[in-house]
């Protein structure tokens, strides 16, 4: 039954036809094209759809449009005074922009609306009041710190005093690098905490994410997933679905290419839709396209599938047992990847050790949960080019994989990456949405869009591998590490995805933090009947790092050495080649240890806190970019590759940029296919571009979203963009400056070699008073030569890393380091943990944008602290996920987030652009160990399997009470 109703939205009356069951969110987005409010869960769990009704925040996904007829509704698009057809930003919006309240921006409209409601009744809220008001809004990126700051400091942004307010209101701790310290003021853009260049679009709801885009004639696709964890398809009957009104196409395994796909070329083991076998609940079986999403959903439910069920394996030990059912015939004992690395001689070294301890640790199934669900739109252009809009963090790999599956040249695929609402590794692979949308679009001749629901995201998976780790560490009397060996079983789920790399990463990153003279790693990535695991922030490393840090702390206690001191004794030094041939240049790890120790008040707290309160330390570091590409040789599909000599590695540049200057010289367009996914890469690259050109950042526009425009950058993974993309951009910009020099020299009457560029001027070195406008020089160039375009690229240095099997993984031009101290309180009667405070120091090289760096740290701390104590994808005995939603799968809310102090130590990386390294992934690594240690310190019991839930803590406390009368482990204070 269709009703005609009048809605009052942002002061305008809209009379429209609605169904009684249409939600306000759907009506706003689909009928009024107000796409600022986001659909990130559709069941009230996340707050991304928050709008105001009668001035009060509501979840518009749970409100029926008919219920709010006649009531004033305000959406993000309605904030701000209209002036000459443009809405001015509200002070609150300005504060979000300037205080680091925005990263991917997907939570932003909801956050801003909830905060607007708060400020309208309470203009000066306390921190607790802010947290209460935002308690229903989840953010996966910021750790909430920037959001709280923005609301607290909103006051400073009234009266248009943006800049002044920013200066006194927003001190962002940042450091001057060694290089720039030598010459203060040397840089203009680099090193500045500039607001994100996309922040205004995100805070006004203007930023378009894939699900916000509507193409003419666009239709909607939906995938049917397997209902069983393991089996073969006996029969599929799509006739009822195909007969449904509004259905335009139904496809099954028979309609998709036979080509398998995946991530690592040696392990392409996925089909677009199941050909015969299904390997996990949710494994794609069929798909439909229909005139709207609701019809597509109904059609999917009408597809009848009969399965012959096979026994499922859900656990790595079960899966590797003799006679276990095989998930894939090709992987014997279900082991898809096996790693055996041995450097030095661990057995001999253990025999010489004064103390050896072996422990077993278990990780958890973690899911990235970016706030934006995956989405795609596919269209085939009349010349046969496949155009795909997709929410991805690695556009080039998607382009490559589409070309591979559809047997078309890479150049015939155009990938457009709209704004992306977070990835964390979950959007690094080509998804069934990308592929099915392309198949359905070819079949129907219409653009097809597909989106995952929150539940489907969990079934698609690609989260962190759950790892089962047996670690053995040997030290001398002083706690100096002599030998370390590890055996890790990684629960990989049903497909390989990124898992080969994961299995190698789990071993390769351990020896970069401490000197380990003898090292052995045996890793097994095991296939199980669960959604495939993939690469998640810190790829493969967080769980082993957690286990290692715990073990080191246990050993420190065993030997009565202070945990900070034992780290100092083993800490990595700069200019070291590690036992596994990782080539470390800059390293300020010790400085981070000294700094966290001092700042956290470690010495006055460790061992001196009352029961129920604890402090702990954890450290970690990561690569600044993978030294090698996922595929080999040149940019060409493997089946097209000619009879050239076998190439062991990729031989093309990993990051490529073009800088084009507008004809009047007043704007620079920086083109690079680097994926801005919320981490801030567009902003950082724009700063690097401006710095290298010598013009203000405000004149630089980034074009990173379209593969037709921007040359390849491999993507936002392995913390690579600042270093690799940064080099490509700075080189492209330098090429432009080089081209301008003769023209400027002519205008200035000096030698080309004497020309310098800065602040939009070109001047004679040493005499800034002799200058011309940068733009004038650019115009002169154009007059004579036509377009002023520079290009640049970056290849990792030759000969990086070792030459053993798997040496490529973990090999990087540069490595980051960091230390974190965590303080917790634990309710000893319920086991409930409150993570109170984090003190974190990082060596990320020279920060290009300190505020962005701290944003990454704050986000990583909250995400990973939640991972340590709350997050876990749980399965039942049939392989079904028990908590595929945001109230069952628990990411930290603003009320759980600790207070965070984040700062950086001075560092300069010779291999990084302007001395920069990475922060995005490395910042996660110290966190797990620090939280676990603080809990052990507060309770006297070590919990070695993640997540460290209240229930596990309580059980361990009771067990200890039962078995001993000895009060507590050495680590617990007596005060």
């Amino acid at each position: 039954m269709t009703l005609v109703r009048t809605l009052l939205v942002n002061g305008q009356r809209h009379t429209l036809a609605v169904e009684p069951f249409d939600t306000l969110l759907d009506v706003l987005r689909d009928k009024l094209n107000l796409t600022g409010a986001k659909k990130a869960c559709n069941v009230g769990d996340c707050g991304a759809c928050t709008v105001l009704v009668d001035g009060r925040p509501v979840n518009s996904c749970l409100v029926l449009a008919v219920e709010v007829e006649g009531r004033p509704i305000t959406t993000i698009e309605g904030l701000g005074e209209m002036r000459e057809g443009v809405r001015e930003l509200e002070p609150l919006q300005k504060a979000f922009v300037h205080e680091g309240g925005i990263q991917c921006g997907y939570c932003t409209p909801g956050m801003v609306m909830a905060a607007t409601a708060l400020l309208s009744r309470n203009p000066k809220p306390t921190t607790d009041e802010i947290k209460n008001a935002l308690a229903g809004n989840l953010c996966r990126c910021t750790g909430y710190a920037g959001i709280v700051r923005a609301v607290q400091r909103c006051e400073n942004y009234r009266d248009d005093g943006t800049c002044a307010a920013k200066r006194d209101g927003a001190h962002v701790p940042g450091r001057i690098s060694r290089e720039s310290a030598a010459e203060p003021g040397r840089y203009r853009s680099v090193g500045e905490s500039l607001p994100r260049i996309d922040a205004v679009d995100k805070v006004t709801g203007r930023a378009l994410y894939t699900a916000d885009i509507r193409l003419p004639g666009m239709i909607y696709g939906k995938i049917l997933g397997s209902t069983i964890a393991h089996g073969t398809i006996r029969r599929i009957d799509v006739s009822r679905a195909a007969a449904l009104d509004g259905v335009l196409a139904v496809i099954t395994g028979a309609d998709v290419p036979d080509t398998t796909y995946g991530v690592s070329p040696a392990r392409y083991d996925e089909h677009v839709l199941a050909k015969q076998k299904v390997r996990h609940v949710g494994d794609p079986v069929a798909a439909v396209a229909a005139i709207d999403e609701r019809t597509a959903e109904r059609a999917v439910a009408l597809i009848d599938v009969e399965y012959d069920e096979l026994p499922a394996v859900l656990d790595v030990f079960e899966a590797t047992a003799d006679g276990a059912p095989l998930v894939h015939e090709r992987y014997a004992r279900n082991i898809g990847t096996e790693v055996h690395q041995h450097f030095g001689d661990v057995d001999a070294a253990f025999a010489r050790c004064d103390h050896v301890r072996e422990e077993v640790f278990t990780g958890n199934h973690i899911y990235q949960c970016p706030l934006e669900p995956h989405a795609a739109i596919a269209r085939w252009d009349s010349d046969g080019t496949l155009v795909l809009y997709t929410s991805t963090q690695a556009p080039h790999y998607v382009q490559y994989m589409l070309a591979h599956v559809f047997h078309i040249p890479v150049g015939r695929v155009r990938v457009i990456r709209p704004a992306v609402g977070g990835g964390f590794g979950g959007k690094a692979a080509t998804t069934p949405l990308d592929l099915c949308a392309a198949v359905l679009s070819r079949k129907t001749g219409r653009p097809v869009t597909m989106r995952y629901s929150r539940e489907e995201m969990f079934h698609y998976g690609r989260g962190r591998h759950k790892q089962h780790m047996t670690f053995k560490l040997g030290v001398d009397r002083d706690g100096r590490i002599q030998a370390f060996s590890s055996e890790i079983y990684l629960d990989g789920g049903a497909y390989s995805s990124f898992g080969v790399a994961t299995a190698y990463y789990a071993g390769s990153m351990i020896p970069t933090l401490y000197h380990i003279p003898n090292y052995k790693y045996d890793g097994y990535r095991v296939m199980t009947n669960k959604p495939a695991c993939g690469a998640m922030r810190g790829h493969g490393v967080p769980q082993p790092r957690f286990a290692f840090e715990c073990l080191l702390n246990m050993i420190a206690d065993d030997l009565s050495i202070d945990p900070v001191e034992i780290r100092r004794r083993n800490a990595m030094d700069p200019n070291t080649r590690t036992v596994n041939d990782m080539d470390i240049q800059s390293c300020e790890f010790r400085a981070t240890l000294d700094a966290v120790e001092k700042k956290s008040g470690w010495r006055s707290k460790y061992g001196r806190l009352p029961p129920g309160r604890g402090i702990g330390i954890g450290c970690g570091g990561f690569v600044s970019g993978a030294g090698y590409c996922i595929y080999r040789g040149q940019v060409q599909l493997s089946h097209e590759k000619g009879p050239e000599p076998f190439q062991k590695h990729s031989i093309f540049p990993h990051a490529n940029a073009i800088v084009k200057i507008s004809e009047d010289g007043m704007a620079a367009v920086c083109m690079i296919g680097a994926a801005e996914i919320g981490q801030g890469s567009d902003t950082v690259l724009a700063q690097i571009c401006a710095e290298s050109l010598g013009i203000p950042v405000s004149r630089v526009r980034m074009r990173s979203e379209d593969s037709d425009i921007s040359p390849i950058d491999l993507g936002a993974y392995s913390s690579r963009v600042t270093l690799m993309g940064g080099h490509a951009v700075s080189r492209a910009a330098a090429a432009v400056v080089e081209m301008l020099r003769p023209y400027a020299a002519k205008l200035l009457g000096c030698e080309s070699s004497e020309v310098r560029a800065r602040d939009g001027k070109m001047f004679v070195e040493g005499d800034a008073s002799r200058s011309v406008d940068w733009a004038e020089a650019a115009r002169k160039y154009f007059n004579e030569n036509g377009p002023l375009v520079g290009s640049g690229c970056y290849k990792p240095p030759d000969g990086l890393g070792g030459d053993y099997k798997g040496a490529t993984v973990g090999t990087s031009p540069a490595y980051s380091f960091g230390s974190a101290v965590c303080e917790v309180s634990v309710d000893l009667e319920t086991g409930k943990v409150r993570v109170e405070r984090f003190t974190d120091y990082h060596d990320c090289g020279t920060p290009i944008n300190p505020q962005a760096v701290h944003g990454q740290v704050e986000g990583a701390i909250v995400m990973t602290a939640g991972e340590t104590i709350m997050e876990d994808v749980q399965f039942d005995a049939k392989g079904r996920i028990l908590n595929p939603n945001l109230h069952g799968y628990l990411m930290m809310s603003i009320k759980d987030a600790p207070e965070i102090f984040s700062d950086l130590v001075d560092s300069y990386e010779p291999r990084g652009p302007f001395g920069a390294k990475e922060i995005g992934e490395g910042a996660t690594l110290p966190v797990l160990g620090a939280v676990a240690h603080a809990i052990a310190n507060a309770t006297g019991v070590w919990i070695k399997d993640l997540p460290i839930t209240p229930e596990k803590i309580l059980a361990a406390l009771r067990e200890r009470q039962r078995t001993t009368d000895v009060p507590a482990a050495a680590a617990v204070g007596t005060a």
Partner: protein
Amino acid sequence: MFSQPTTLEEALDVRARCGPDLLPIAGGTDIVVAMNRGQLRPAGFLDLTHVRGLDAVRHENGRYECGGAATHATLSRLPVEALAEAALSVGGPAIRNRGTIGGNLVTASPAGDGCVALLALDADVELAHASRGRRVVPLREYFLGYRKTALLADELITRVRFPKDWITAWYKIGKRGSVNISVVCCAIGRSPTGLFHIALGSVAATPIRAPHAEEIVNRDGLTDGAIAEAADAVRRDISPIDDHRASAKYRAAMSVTLVARLLRRIRDRVKEPAR
């Protein structure tokens, strides 16, 4: 079909005529969730959000009387600690602006926080029918089984009544700081005559009272021994299960912990000199 009455008479009338065909909807925070998940596709709705006065709270004769569509946000501002805190623990602010006490009682989830707090207040619910009139059911008799209640398909919850001046206490163990479904929650109300009403959530098929525990403190008062004994006796009142949130064992242990904790808290309050 869709009906949007503005008076209670009209609403009751529609309800009596259409029964289950028109699903009453208040905040929609349970129904629309089920609908968006594809678990529910009602033929139509009876929208209660425009019914005048149904969301109001009044007080008379030492008792509060709140309308069936009073929101959690409204309840969280009442000076009745257990109920206010329970209401404040529901979802986030946007959920509380919409979700109602009537919805909470009809959904009757074992984890329904409002239900637990009201059980500890020994509340009454008023169930009304257009022609049969209104019947008042003590809440402790209202929950019949897992998500089954005394409400008939042609009735609406029009009012909930509960005392104003009891000493009450509330504690919810969840797994997160907000948008937090209880693993165990407990509410205790002490009437001016010194009788204890102990209620728990998430430890049985419905929100429950704990008669065994109540009996001990009603008999012996709040001595250390009685508190310990009552807390332990609660094990006989509950029948928790294992699920992905927690094990039955943990729920049982926490029921004991919470009953003891809240009884001690109430003892501290009772001792406070009257001001």
